[in-house]
């Protein structure tokens, strides 16, 4: 094996008969559902639904306290943040047209940077707004009696603490390690194309 032509000839001997036939591939592609896109759509739909529910509650349930109104508004804003972030991210993927490897690596790097920003800033903002919104929203109901107040706020505070001190740090640590590793690798590939 002493020249490129020999290597080319060897390269072409790769067996490709185990690939699906055209008909089989057509069946596969027709059945395919984009899970990533579906997940984003579900988040957008759920956030919109929650916001709509919150707005409807504002009209149906006439609250007397400002804390309830404020809580509702904060939760609606948190839903809005979720809808905006996920729609923007989905649009970037949909807008991604025919692009070279170099452009694609840049796109992936930007996507991962956006994700890091999301975990560090947007998620904190969204969770902060919804947590504060929930605590304010519950005040009117909880203030009926001391027992209701203690029970409601014990549960709400435990949930908030679990969310901030257990769920988020765990998810952030896992995601951030994965994202850092991906970004490092993408930078390496990007350098190969400089």
């Amino acid at each position: 094996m002493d020249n490129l032509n020999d290597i080319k000839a060897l390269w072409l001997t790769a067996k490709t008969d185990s690939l699906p036939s055209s008909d089989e591939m057509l069946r596969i592609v027709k059945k395919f559902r984009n899970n990533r896109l579906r997940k984003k759509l579900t988040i957008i739909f759920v956030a919109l639904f929650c916001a709509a529910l919150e707005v409807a509650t504002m009209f149906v349930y006439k609250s007397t306290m400002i804390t309830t109104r404020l809580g509702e508004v904060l939760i609606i804003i948190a839903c809005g943040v979720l809808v905006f972030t996920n729609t923007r991210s989905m649009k970037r993927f949909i807008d991604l047209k025919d692009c070279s490897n170099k452009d694609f690596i840049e796109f992936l790097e930007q996507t991962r940077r956006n994700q890091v920003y999301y975990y560090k800033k947007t998620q904190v903002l969204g969770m902060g707004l919804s947590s504060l919104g929930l605590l304010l929203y519950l005040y009117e109901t909880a203030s009926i009696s001391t027992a209701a107040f203690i029970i409601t706020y014990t549960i709400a505070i435990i949930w908030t603490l679990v969310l901030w001190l257990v769920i988020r740090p765990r998810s952030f640590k896992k995601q951030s390690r994965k994202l850092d590793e991906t970004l490092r690798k993408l930078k390496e590939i990007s350098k190969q194309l400089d």
Partner: protein
Amino acid sequence: MADFEEIYAQYSPQIYRVCMGYINDKEQAKDLVQETFISVWKNLSTFRNESKISTWIFRIATNNCLRALEKSKRVMTTELPFHLPDQPHEETQEEKLAFLYNCIAELEETDRIIISLVLEDLPQAEIAAIVGLSAVNTRVKIHRVKEKLAIKFKAHGQFE
């Protein structure tokens, strides 16, 4: 506009070989072929002939290969030992091919893509359009990758 089945029949063997060159694993290469043709199917109606259809398909395939790094897919480099047995041994075609894949797997990601496209006999201008380098850079890169591959072959006693 060619229809999907024609495109698949024409390009799937090439795409499979390029993916094998990149990932060096039959099952993962098949998955990458599938992902590539799912994208082709989804976007065929909006393909605007701004580039050749082959350039478009190879771009999708190689971009999928590059994205495989995000799915923790590892490139296999040790499927077969590099050191051939001391006993005289007539290598089979499959062993020779596995050896070639192992040599390619030792290259950097973009070099693996470039050499796979070279071995598919794509013109340099098309390789430049797929990878996103200038014509001059592509020519230099191709030359270097061929040299690197030759060194690997020599190091393992495959060049006379």
